[in-house]
């Protein structure tokens, strides 16, 4: 027993000395939780790129843990020392806007930190043989009383473009939004499958996951065609010129605003960029917020991280905390407007 106790004591003393002397710095071992449970997905990839760079810059350890949104928020709630940080994307406030369980108002309950990157891939597709050639065709069809079924994963990033479609239909002709209906599914595989099974006319997808399907010949049951890419043109323009797969950036731009217009209010186009940003415990020391801002600013100034992000088809997008907060608040209020405009019907 004494042996055990001595061992513990020795270990404890050794580690106690390694504790940070001042509390206003990030501790030596940081856990970065993310809002996704997938370690192969875009949130994880993005977070690990940022975590690597940040860890190297600050000389600390950062572990990325894919615990999922619910557990990530819980972990963040429990810890205000800066030992737990979170990275997530627009889902964090969209979930709240759509009233999904477990999503609180991030601007109220957490501190929104810097943005780090954009995934410009959010897209809508139709079967290659579809009669709908463009978003305009789809909205016209809705106007003419044709039911258009759109496969989405409800309650967030996948639904916002669908809500925008309904809103555009409403702007164009009051009541026609009723004809754009959601087919609620889950993963990308499920969404694709609804197209193959003819359960949906349009699906939500992404440039990355669906581009190769658009290269298949029309007689292939799996072939698809882009009709809309929701990214801002300014974002998409920063993508590599060769685009993705066999689709060049210029071709991709054809499907985005302003070439493909899904109107927000009759004047402006609706756009959506999936942005990744930090979330902190609201009690966390202001000095740590600044420390991370400064470190990231330096990292982005060096320019190496951008190369890694671009190699994985992300658009570098660093905004320090205060700018990020303002930007995301504005973004949220736009989408809040869209959602409340079309609410009342079944979305």
């Amino acid at each position, binding site marked *: 027993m004494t042996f055990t106790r001595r061992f513990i004591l020795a270990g404890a003393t050794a580690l106690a000395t390694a504790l940070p002397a001042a509390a206003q710095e990030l501790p030596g071992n940081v856990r970065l939780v993310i809002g996704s449970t*997938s370690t192969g997905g875009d949130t994880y*990839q993005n977070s690990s790129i940022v975590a690597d760079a940040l860890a190297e810059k600050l000389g600390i350890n950062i572990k990325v843990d894919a615990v999922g949104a619910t557990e990530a928020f819980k*972990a963040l709630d429990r810890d205000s020392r800066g030992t737990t940080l979170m990275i997530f994307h627009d889902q964090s406030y969209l979930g709240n806007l759509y009233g999904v369980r477990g999503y609180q108002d991030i601007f109220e309950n957490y501190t929104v930190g810097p943005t780090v990157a954009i995934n410009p891939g959010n897209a809508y597709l139709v079967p290659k043989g579809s009669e709908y050639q463009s978003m305009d065709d789809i909205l016209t069809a809705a106007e003419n009383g044709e039911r258009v079924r759109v496969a989405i994963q409800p309650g967030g990033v996948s639904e916002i473009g669908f809500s925008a479609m309904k809103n555009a239909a409403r702007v164009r002709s009051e009541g026609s939004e009723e004809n754009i209906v959601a087919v609620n599914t889950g*993963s990308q595989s499920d969404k694709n499958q609804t197209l193959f099974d003819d359960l949906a006319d349009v699906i939500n997808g992404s440039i*990355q996951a669906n581009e*190769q399907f658009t290269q298949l010949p029309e007689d292939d049951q799996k072939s698809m065609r882009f009709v809309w890419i929701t990214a801002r043109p300014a974002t998409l323009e920063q993508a590599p010129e060769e685009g993705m*797969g066999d689709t060049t950036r210029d071709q991709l731009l054809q499907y985005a605003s302003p070439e493909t217009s899904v109107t927000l209010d009759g004047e402006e186009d609706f756009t959506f960029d999936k942005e990744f940003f930090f979330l902190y415990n609201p009690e966390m020391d202001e000095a740590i917020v600044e420390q991370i801002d400064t470190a990231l600013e330096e990292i982005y100034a060096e320019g190496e991280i951008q190369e890694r992000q671009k190699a*994985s088809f992300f658009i570098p997008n660093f905004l320090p905390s205060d700018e990020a907060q303002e930007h995301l608040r504005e973004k949220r209020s736009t989408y809040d407007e869209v959602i409340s405009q079309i609410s009342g019907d079944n979305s």
Partner: protein
Amino acid sequence: MELLDIISPLFLALIVGGTFVGIVFGAIPGMTATMAVAVCLPITYSLGLENGLALLLGLYVGGISGGMVPAILLGIPGTPSSITTTFDGLPMTKKGEGEKALRIGICSSLVGGLVSLLILWLCAPLLADFAIQFSYVEKFLIILFALTVMAALSNDMLIGIFSGFLGIFIALIGTYDISDGGNGEIRLIPPGLDYWLESGFALLPVLIGLFGLAAILEEAERGVPQSQSAADVKIGSQSTFSFSVFRGQTVNLLRSGGIGTFAGILPGVGGSAASILSYSNAKTFSKHPERYGTGEPEGIIASEAGNNGLTGGALVPLLSLGIPGDSTTALLIGAFTLQGIQVGPLFIGNNPVTWDAMIVAMLIANLAMFTMMYFAIRHIARIVTVPKHILFPIILMMCVIGAYTINYGIMFDVWTLLIFGVFGWLAVKLRLEIAPFIIGFILGPSAEVYFVKSLESFNDLTIFFTKSWIAIVLWVLIIGSVAGSVALSRSRQSTTADA
């Protein structure tokens, strides 16, 4: 680049090393192939695509195969896919045939792996086209067919089926997950427990709780009789392994490997369903189904050929649709995107060399797995001779690590381990049956999604019979399996009545 340039000493070393680490991960209760791939994924960034894949595929094949070791020797499935291996593996170990059981498992794994690799190599794109013919309806029927094994595994039909449905019921606790197509609402949570139970009980902690902790609690209750350990279990001395075990098993081997491959091809079905499907099939077609669950080599053959068949199968949708067939292959997508390579229907055509390299890596990984395990088995099997007062605490500790790390650090998963450890102990006292329970628990969530989505899409119950010819075939299998179980249970009853 040519294929021969890729097959470098490093490439080979990575496969063999990956396979070894994978086996170790698989062999530790609570550590899975998925986790092995997850922890090594970041390393692959600097290795380049082909070398990175070599490592990951080695880990994958090794991890799935290593799961049989604790399943057979300790009755604790090392990974969810080796669950059916415990049914006949542990009884064989108790009869002193642990080493023999392991050798049977290893050989079956190799055959299963090779069968699926061959299928993958020859007809991946074709199979992907077939797989997309499976809508919600057909997927539900596949799950239903896998669920029929509940009946086959029951000692007492009524109680067994009750246990199975209880497993489904408990699996439904928590959120109807949006990412599976649900509406994100919670259900079945006792008041006040929302905070803990909203994500439900995770599979792996439940599994190791029921099979690991519960068994240890049972031993503790009996006072951990020491005599039973070292002296009693003579590994391998009582019945030696010879390849004659496989006489008459060719069909079983090929069928199980094929079923495993096929289960892997269907996104959302694969994973744990692979070995359950092949086990239930083998039992349905067996000449002596009554011996299943009592230490029947056929059962191990079916289970292990099935779960290694999964490895090749799960790569089909990944490489020809860009969609992972199970949780491990989902991580492989990460390896591709890290290198900026797109996976989708054009992958094989656009990257023929990478594709060939993957096939070669899988082949070598299977052979390496076989060689390593076959020759190390005598030493591995000695684990049962470790005194229990040393072995049990270590198993308990490893279970904690497994439970905590499976979802990247959630303490509730560790408590789940304890809850289901106690539940497992109680269940035996209550004469509930664990095997059907766990099958229900594993398959419950997919059964729900596919059932509800089928009705949501088609609004008619008859769709389950009229959707396609595939549905009809599946019904024939389901009815066959149920009828087999009923007949078996009848004959068992009449023999007990005669006696």
